[in-house]
């Protein structure tokens, strides 16, 4: 069995497992070298390889584009392009993010009015350009920020990133003394589930409720 046969078997196996061919494959340097070692029945390929090169011939043969030739072992996978991501879905995600942030800051503002002497300040800033925005040429929008002050204490909520694996967006929470990450663990288009990341092993993620908000506001060094 030469490299062409091996790749054919592996692609068939991938198709059996996933119900479709891989979108891209990663091959090794050795594979590129071994493509030249064809058997008798594949001899016609040699001409094509000479004419069009290994890359184009192998891609056409299997219908799977080659992502790279420097993998440590052969890999096949489904690419993000097939997950239905388009410029409009990226824009929709940003709109949803802004909506969720505004709803969250409305709640914080309500909690702030219930604290004597505390005052809230809402502003906005240009969002950070993330990978998918760059990929689909989607412009950065203004995202809301929220700051609350009580005497000398100040807590700022500044959106950080939307696309973060394992969460549906992250907000930087800066107090006078510490820095926290606040994440929304909800699924896309589901109600928000804000959690504050703590260094505690007992409660690594704390639900962001009014007592926790008040604790941040009263935080000391």
């Amino acid at each position, binding site marked *: 069995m030469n490299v062409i046969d091996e790749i054919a078997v592996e692609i068939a196996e991938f198709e059996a*497992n996933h119900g479709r061919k891989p979108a891209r494959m990663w091959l090794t340097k050795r594979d590129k070298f071994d493509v030249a070692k064809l058997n008798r029945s594949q001899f016609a390929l040699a001409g094509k390889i000479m004419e069009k090169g290994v890359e184009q011939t192998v891609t056409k043969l299997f219908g799977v584009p080659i992502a790279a030739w420097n993998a*440590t072992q052969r*890999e096949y*996978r489904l690419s993000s392009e097939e997950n239905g991501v388009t410029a409009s879905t990226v824009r929709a995600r940003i709109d949803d993010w802004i909506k969720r942030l505004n709803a969250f800051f409305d709640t914080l503002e309500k909690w702030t009015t219930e604290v004597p002497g505390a005052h809230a300040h809402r502003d906005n800033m240009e969002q950070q350009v*993330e990978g998918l925005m760059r990929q689909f040429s989607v412009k950065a929008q203004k995202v809301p920020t929220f700051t609350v002050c009580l005497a000398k204490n100040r807590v700022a909520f500044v959106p*950080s*990133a939307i696309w973060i694996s394992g969460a549906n967006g992250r907000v930087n929470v800066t107090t006078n003394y510490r820095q*926290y990450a606040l994440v929304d663990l909800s699924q896309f288009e589901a109600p928000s589930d804000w959690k504050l990341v703590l260094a505690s092993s007992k409660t690594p993620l704390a639900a962001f409720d009014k007592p926790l908000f008040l604790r941040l506001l009263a935080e000391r060094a």
Partner: protein
Amino acid sequence: MINYNEIHRAYVESDAYLGRKEAGARTPSGKTRWARARMFNDQAYFLMLFAQLEQRIMQEVVKLVNKKKVLGRWQDRRLWQEAKPDRISFMQKVALLTEKGQVTYNRMDQLYHDFRCAIAHGNTAAVGPIFIPTIAAELKRIAGILRA
């Protein structure tokens, strides 16, 4: 998974440091630079946790092969006698511990190819930031499922 709590604490500390830098940056390019540093930090922690899971899977596969090698009937043990766990690919090892095509296998396939390999091959931008507490909890849960 070894020392999950210690890793979590170290992650929170390092992420908070980079988060403070990101929040304090005065220019958009400064913010982007620190956000990238934060992303690399996420990915480094992911690789460390995943490497521990790989080690755990290897141990379970060795355990399985050793168990099967000593089966009473030769017909049952013949396929296992020549099995060399260090010579089979990672996803083949996973397939020895959980059924191919099922939820755990598919998720491992995704975590391995779309995260671990993408990061290891320098395709870090495609992976982006990773929220380690969620992913670590998931890896821990998977480690409990993948048994000999």
